[in-house]
């Protein structure tokens, strides 16, 4: 391999490639953005007044209809439910938004949003900033003009929340993550569908998340588990299971500088600088770069000492088992990875199901080996692991599956009252 020179990191290279294609791309053959000529543009005032005057325990119902809004809705009263008549019937559309960084901004606990659609917001769809017991059910967030760099960043975006449930919801077209849970604790994301986002579902700097029963397809990356530096809470403890993660091959249309801009198109699941992640029982197919990527923030081109001084970038305690993999890895994103694939596996070959960038924290090794709990385990025979040797400048990329044949301790399910109640 000594003859191969991948100067510059593979992923960083990918990122710059992705950039060249992100000047307002959009998918072809879309029906176009929602027609608002018949939309009700008066109702937003009524609705905002209801939100201002809401009392704990109130259920604010929004009848079926298409509503045009031009500024953010805001709620800061605890214990409020906002309920529509269905995500295809009660439609809030911000195509003509003049002000506000999101469609709906909630800073309240015991909040439920259900059965409505949030469309075409300039920035994020729903942001819930802080709060405990947050339920988002049967909500569709969509940019109706198709995927585009010009779309808002996040679809459903609870951040710094605790006990957060997102279920039976749909996110389409976000220029960052369709469903994004950041800096939160006790999270269940289940039975949702994420399509044509840069990141379908993303768990970032969060503790104890269960992500299951979801479908992530046609995103750039299907399901992401990330940690970023400079935040108070380091994330750890995510289970990703029983999801369908297929054909996440949409070009990366994110904005440079955002964490997701470094995700190669064709990524099924990616764990980046996060720990204690259990990936099992998923059906992962036809993600063209790799079905699973395990990586460090380092390989996204960030090795700044100021960042790393207070930040552990190493993905540790990652366990991949009993998934059904098929296809995938056949057409990786970016010239460097394409070259790597061709070199190692031939024109008709494929990157193995698990691609690891190779960053290991030598300082944590005991007797030359990482303690068991910190290992990356890919248990199943037949599921190969490619170490891309990013730390070594990609000089020695190698399939070394046998080194990962281990098991970790299964994590306990995430449980909290809001999610345990079937409703």
């Amino acid at each position, binding site marked *: 391999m000594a003859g191969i020179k991948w100067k510059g990191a593979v992923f960083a290279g990918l990122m710059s490639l992705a950039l060249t294609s992100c000047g307002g791309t959009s998918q072809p053959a879309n029906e176009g953005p929602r027609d608002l000529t018949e939309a009700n543009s008066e109702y937003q005032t009524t609705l905002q007044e209801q939100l*201002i005057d809401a009392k704990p325990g109130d259920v604010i119902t929004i009848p079926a209809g298409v509503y045009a809004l031009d500024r953010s809705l*805001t709620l800061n009263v605890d214990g409020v439910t906002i309920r529509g008549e269905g995500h295809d019937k009660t439609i809030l559309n911000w195509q003509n*938004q*003049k002000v506000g960084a999101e469609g709906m901004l909630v800073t309240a606990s015991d909040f439920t949003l259900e059965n409505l659609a949030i469309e075409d917001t300039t920035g994020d769809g729903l942001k819930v900033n*802080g709060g405990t017991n947050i339920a988002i059910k049967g909500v569709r967030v969509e940019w109706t003009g198709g995927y585009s760099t010009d779309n808002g*960043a996040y679809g459903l975006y609870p951040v*710094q929340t605790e006990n957060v449930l997102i279920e039976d919801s749909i996110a389409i077209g976000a220029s960052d993550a369709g469903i994004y849970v*950041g800096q939160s604790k006790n999270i269940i994301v289940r039975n949702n569908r994420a399509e044509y986002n840069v990141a379908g579902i993303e768990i970032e700097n969060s503790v104890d998340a269960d992500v299951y029963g979801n479908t992530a397809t046609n995103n750039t990356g299907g399901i992401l588990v990330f940690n970023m530096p400079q935040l108070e809470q380091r994330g750890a403890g995510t289970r990703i299971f029983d999801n369908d993660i297929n054909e996440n091959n949409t070009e990366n249309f994110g*904005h440079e500088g955002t964490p997701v801009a470094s995700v190669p198109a064709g990524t099924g699941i990616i764990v980046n600088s996060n720990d204690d992640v259990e990936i099992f029982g998923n059906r992962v197919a036809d993600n063209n770069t790799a079905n699973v990527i395990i990586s460090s923030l380092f390989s996204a081109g960030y090795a700044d000492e*100021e960042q790393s001084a207070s930040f552990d970038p190493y993905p540790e305690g990652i366990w991949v088992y009993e998934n059904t993999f098929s296809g995938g890895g056949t057409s990786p994103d970016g010239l460097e990875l394409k070259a790597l694939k061709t070199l190692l596996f031939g024109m008709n070959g494929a990157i193995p199901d698990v691609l690891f960038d190779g960053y290991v924290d030598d300082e944590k090794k005991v007797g030359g080996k990482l303690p068991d709990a910190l290992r990356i385990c890919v248990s199943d025979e037949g599921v190969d692991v490619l170490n891309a040797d990013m730390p070594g400048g990609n000089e020695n990329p190698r399939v070394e599956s046998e080194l990962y044949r281990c098991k970790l301790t299964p994590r306990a399910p995430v449980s909290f009252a809001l999610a345990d109640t079937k409703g």
Partner: protein
Amino acid sequence: MRGAFLTLVAGALALMGCSVETDDPADEAVTMGPQVAPNFIAQGNPETLAEWGQLQHIGSALVLGEAVQPYDLNTPLFTDYAHKLRTIWMPGGTAAQYTEGEVLDFPVGTVITKTFYYPTAEGADEGEVLRDTSNDFFAGDTLRLDNIRLIETRVLVRRDAGWEVIPYRWNDAQTEASLNRIGGIIPLSMVSDEGAADFNYVMPNVNECASCHATNSNEDAIHPIGPKARHLNRDFVYKAGTQNQISNLTDAGFLKGAPDDLTAAPKNANWTDVKAPLDLRARAYLDINCSHCHSPVGPADTSGLSLEPDASGAALGKCKLPIAAGAGTGNRRWGIRPGHPDDSILVYRMQSDEADKMMPEIGRTTVHKEGAALIADWVAAMDGDCT
């Protein structure tokens, strides 16, 4: 009765040297009289601003109520080039306690108002306002309204349960400000030496007020932002002459515990003071415009970026990766790249007027060119680089 009352106050104006010219016959034949008495209204949402007695609209002037104190900040928040008349008042016998770092500790009953207005040209079209920062139009205790368009007055009142915000919007006739909790988009055209440019002045709804004034994201409580020692510690030209604002509040009986020697008290720079060090001007600007959210406990702590006066290093944005900036990165990789404003997200977001990219997220729809230029200069002067 009302007519007579107006007459009295207008008389006071005449005495202090303002020649109030008005079509209101009530203003003729004025005689000296007392200013209106301010009220603390302990509950509810009064329908008109006048009920608070903090500001009185008389003829073509807005006059402070009795004992109501005007103030400015060393460096103010930018709000689409609007001018602001700030006042503070406390019921008799009550006073705030001085604190060095945080907002002064105000007693129940404190009423703070902020009136947003623009100068207008003589005979200007409806909705046409001037971008003119040369004059504050306020003198003594009076804001002359000739060639002024009043937009809104926000009342912050300290009640038993905490602070509440009660916003009022001035009517088109400019005679009365009425309760408006829902806010609104007010299309205006701003005329400057660069020509006229349409913009939307956005009056926030009361929830949006909390977006800035709920300065600790771990609690819902709202707080004033401006009345901190470092913002207030400056001179003001009062009716009786020039005085330090903190000393004035003490003399007015509204403040206890302030140091006698205010030269040792915290004092932010005036961002326009070209004689002040660039770093202090920039940090003062970031403090008042950003740090109510971008602090370790503010709503924007989700970003890990702090723009408080004591923040430094990556927390201040140096070589810091964005977290959830979305389009707000402007395809840039770091909050601040020292020496490179054009590679710094902080500068990009200040230079933008698009809702999903700009910072602050609310409170402006236009770009503060001079403010953004100050921060760009500050970044350009920084040593070091990112790797």
